[in-house]
């Protein structure tokens, strides 16, 4: 065993970075006794917070509830599935979905047609027998007609998607073919919960997968998020719905997303975050000048323990194994 009174090389200040103030490097018995006390205190605090403050728990949206609250939005979303203008239609390849019109409209109607009555089966047969160009014409015409019974945006705040007034849906007339019959029947399936059952059964083992994808096509989900200040441009990344504590540790990604050039785009967001991570991992500890910032700012003196006036430092129980341990003063 070496008895040279010199600290190991890796514990010495780097060349040109002398220690500015004395630190006592003598070893003492580790204060492990504090840890059970800290753990107990934290357990009590966590228990109290869990019991009295709770945690965010907004009941999940269901297709039935959403459609009952906003049937016009459901009619709009389902028509957009047929016109391929919904969010899920735009992301069809990414989501690995089949045609959204078949998935969310004609598929469920075909499954439930025995329950829905003969006119639905006939309308479905008419729609499916038509050429795809004719199907698109009917659906597009109906989508335009829905816009005529949609209120203007309230304006003045975040832009929200307005839903057609479902009470006026029977007043629409035009070259729609069987589309209105199909949409209204599908809205009925959605309202009663059958659409959700169908989507869950269609994708077993992937709980809520198709349900959530369709709910995002419905304008209500994004409108609710806007109303609660939860979209990204509203700093939603660091907020929770109806709860004052949010994921504060995401503040850097949130700043990047809201304030940085192109941070709002997926690629920009990922690249900016990658740059910050690389600076953190490499520049902060390795770049000359930057790595010396803690010493230049004299931060260690705020961190380390120093003996108080008159305090005796306890003996090192392993003194025989720590011959190098001496009080180190300024150079």
């Amino acid at each position: 065993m070496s008895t040279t009174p010199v600290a190991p090389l890796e514990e010495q200040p780097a060349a040109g970075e002398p220690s500015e103030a004395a630190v006592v490097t003598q070893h003492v018995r580790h204060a492990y006794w504090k840890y059970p006390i800290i753990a107990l205190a934290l357990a009590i605090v966590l228990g109290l917070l869990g019991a009295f403050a709770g945690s965010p728990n907004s009941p999940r949206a269901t297709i039935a509830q959403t459609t009952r609250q906003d049937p016009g939005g459901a009619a709009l979303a389902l028509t957009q599935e047929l016109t391929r203008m919904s969010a899920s239609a735009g992301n069809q390849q990414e989501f690995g979905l089949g045609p959204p019109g078949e998935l969310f409209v004609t598929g469920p109607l075909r499954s439930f047609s025995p329950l829905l009555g003969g006119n639905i089966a006939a309308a479905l047969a008419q729609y499916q027998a038509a050429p795809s160009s004719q199907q698109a014409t009917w659906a597009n015409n109906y989508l335009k007609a829905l816009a005529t019974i949609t209120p203007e945006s309230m304006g003045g705040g975040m832009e929200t998607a307005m839903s057609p007034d479902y009470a006026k849906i029977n007043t629409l007339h035009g070259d729609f073919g069987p589309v209105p019959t199909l949409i209204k029947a599908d809205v009925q399936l959605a309202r009663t919960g059958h659409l959700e059952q169908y989507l869950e059964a269609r994708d077993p083992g992937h709980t809520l997968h198709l349900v959530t994808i369709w709910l995002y096509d419905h304008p209500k989900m994004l409108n609710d998020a806007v109303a609660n200040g939860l979209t990204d441009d509203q700093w939603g990344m660091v907020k929770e719905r109806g709860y004052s504590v949010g994921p504060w540790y995401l503040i850097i990604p949130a700043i990047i997303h809201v304030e940085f050039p192109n941070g709002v785009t997926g690629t920009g967001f990922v690249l900016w975050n990658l740059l910050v991570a690389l600076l953190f991992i490499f520049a902060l500890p390795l770049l000359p000048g930057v790595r010396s910032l803690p010493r230049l700012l004299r931060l260690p003196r705020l961190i380390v323990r120093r003996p108080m006036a008159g305090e005796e430092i306890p003996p090192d129980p392993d003194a025989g194994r720590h011959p190098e341990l001496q009080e180190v003063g300024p150079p």
Partner: protein
Amino acid sequence: MAQPETTETTSDVHGYRARVAEHGRFRAVMESFAYLPPFGGMFKKTSPFYAESYWYCMGGITFLMFVYLTISGIILAWLGPFWWLTNSVGMVLKSTHYWAAQAFFFFLVLHLIRVWATGAFRGRRWLNWLLGSAVLLLGLGENLFGLLARGDWESQFVAMHSDDMLFTQPFFFHLFSPANFTADLAIHVAVIPVILFGLIIAHLTLVRLQGIARPL
């Protein structure tokens, strides 16, 4: 180089009686966990005097939070979302899990500040800085999948709304969809925690081997 701690002298000075004589029965009992299996052979028994500051406890407390998150998470996953969303005990346990996650990041940030402010990233210790950074970044990912696996409205909204931000490759190369609650839960409870556990063990092992860095 670490010395073996099985010599008679070492055993005597670290024995229960010696510790009682040194600083009383209360402290000797409270610190027993660090002298008995399984930790007895893992933890160093002494540390430099300058490291006897609460700042130097932050990493240990972060690890404690990880342990609590693991235990409470296993119970939550075992009993399922219906239990944690409807049963009063389940709701409290879920809430403590949420607050422990908040505490995990809080103490992790304090630990990070301590490591940076004392220059404990120098030389070969940079490797451990790298491992700690990986724990932080992977912890953020674990937190995201925890949010997606919560089973409430926020999960549904974030799953869809964050898609373009976080999954620039289509649904993670079509491996899974964030809208798929089953996949989110599996990743949150069975994939990321295992990697995190490995990283944390490697981090602690390096701390044990390299010792506590002398402040700048």
